[in-house]
């Protein structure tokens, strides 16, 4: 067993970096397994934010005074840091947002509304998060376009769907990179190649991938890519919208105002350079700087190692859960190679909310509901699932605590 429970880094030391992990909940040690919703933050990120406020808080871009110059440099360099981390060419391809949702809206409204025409189709998967589904519904409705969905089975895009659904009328493709319901990874490379053959642009929703595995948007050849900083050890209010230069040049701003303009007259205005054109108003400055600190933290540990660690801890939990007849696990089985650190399940005839509530009693934090994927849940024929999602600091013991917690649920609903 001890060999099995190995980790590529010292998890106990890592846990010491995250102050909240010392918390108790109703007398029980906190077991935080709600990482797909938002991750915890290491002290270095918390400190980067506080230091900004305590030492050089100022507005950016325009200031000639010292604080503003320091703040601008830190904020602009944070774009370089993120660009490097995700494999973007440079800062002009990296826009800071509040979250993934804002990035998808910026693409749907800034690009989609102007490039998806009547009779075109937009291809998504059946397991999109509401954030990458609902904005495209708006585009389809406004421009009389068709929405098409790649069928998924247990979180895996079905054979032949890509070839069948993406065709010469496809204008846009928007696909989740790693499912927040199943932890499965979409074959984005194949999808992008196919879409590009037909002249379509592709947005990849990397909310769950970037925090958990090495990602290179350049190699993937995505046109647009979005992710959430707050799910990858960064502050709330941090997120990223990546765009290829040529894709960004096709994109209208989604927000208008200060900082994104070049020349303004009373009747009209022109826009400044990339990426600032897409960041209107005072940006989330401390959050962008905090995100860069999060990237430093992740790179220090190493994304490959993080991925490996999570996969092993998840597999440990999955194997135990698969052995239990009263537990239904959704998604591919524990030996599937493409399985990230997310487990969606239900326990006997307990409703998912009751399961989460009872698990919380044991200190185990999970999430229950439709996971912002209502149509998928209907497709799966369940009203809700409980989701345990792991991160770099979760341990084998915590996986076991989850399984023990499930025993309590079974007892109550026996």
């Amino acid at each position, binding site marked *: 067993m001890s060999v099995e429970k190995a980790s590529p880094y010292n998890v106990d030391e890592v846990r010491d970096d995250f102050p909240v992990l010392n918390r108790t909940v109703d007398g029980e040690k906190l077991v935080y397994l709600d990482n797909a919703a938002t991750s915890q933050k290491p002290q270095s990120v918390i400190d980067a934010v506080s230091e900004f406020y305590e030492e050089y808080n100022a507005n950016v871009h325009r200031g000639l005074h010292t604080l503003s110059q320091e703040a601008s440099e830190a904020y602009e360099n944070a774009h370089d840091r993120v660009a490097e981390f995700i494999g973007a060419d440079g800062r002009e391809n990296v826009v800071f947002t509040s979250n993934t949702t804002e990035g998808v809206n910026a693409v749907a409204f800034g690009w989609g509304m102007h490039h998806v025409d009547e009779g075109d189709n937009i291809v998504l998967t059946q397991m999109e998060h509401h954030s990458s589904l609902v904005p495209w519904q708006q585009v389809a409705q406004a421009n009389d376009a068709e929405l098409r969905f790649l069928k998924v089975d247990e979180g895996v895009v079905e054979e032949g769907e890509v070839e069948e659904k993406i065709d010469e009328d496809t204008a846009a493709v928007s696909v989740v990179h790693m499912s927040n319901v199943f932890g499965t990874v979409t074959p984005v490379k194949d999808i992008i190649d196919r879409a590009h053959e037909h002249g379509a642009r592709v947005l990849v929703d990397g909310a769950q991938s970037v925090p958990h595995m090495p990602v290179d948007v350049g190699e993937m050849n995505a046109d647009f890519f979005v992710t959430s900083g707050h799910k990858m050890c960064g502050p709330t209010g941090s997120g990223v919208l990546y765009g290829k230069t040529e894709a960004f040049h096709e994109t209208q701003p989604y927000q208008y105002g200060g900082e994104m303009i070049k020349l303004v007259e009373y009747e009209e205005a022109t826009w400044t350079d990339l990426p600032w054109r897409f960041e209107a108003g005072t940006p989330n400055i401390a959050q962008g700087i905090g995100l860069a600190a999060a990237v430093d933290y992740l790179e220090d540990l190493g994304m490959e190692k993080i991925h490996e660690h999570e996969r092993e801890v998840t597999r440990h939990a999955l194997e135990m859960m698969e052995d239990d007849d009263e537990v239904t696990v959704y998604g591919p089985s524990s030996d599937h190679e493409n399985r990230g650190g997310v487990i969606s399940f239900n326990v006997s005839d307990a*409703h998912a909310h009751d399961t989460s509530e009872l698990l919380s009693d044991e200190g185990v934090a999970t999430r229950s509901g439709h996971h912002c994927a209502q149509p998928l849940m209907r497709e799966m024929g369940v009203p809700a699932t409980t989701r345990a999602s792991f991160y770099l600091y979760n341990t084998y013991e915590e996986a076991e605590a989850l399984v023990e917690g499930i025993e309590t649920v079974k007892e109550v609903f026996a």
Partner: protein
Amino acid sequence: MSRDMYRQRILDHYRDPQNYGTIDDPDVTYEDVNPSCGDEIQMYAVVDENDEIQDVKFDGQGCAISQASASLLTEEVKGMTLDEVRQLETDDIKEMLGIELSPVRVKCAVLGLKVLEGGIVEYEKEN
């Protein structure tokens, strides 16, 4: 401890809800979901000439708390007038359940009542 919430009585109503089902041609009918969790409830009621509830049923899906509350509520409101139902408040539901609830779960508990009252508002508008 939320475990205390799951008393036998609650679990019984969850597993075997009272007045579960539909009514053909009801006087009052309405449905709603709790957007924060997706629980869905539909209520049906038959009302007599004195605005008294003769029969009431519900269906839908959701957690033990929302289902048990709806079940208990249907037992409670049979024979009440519409006005009396509209007087019911969150505290009355808590009393029916007889358990402590966190703010999130209060929303589950009152869903049935919210739906029934929504139906009554519609009914009174039309009559």
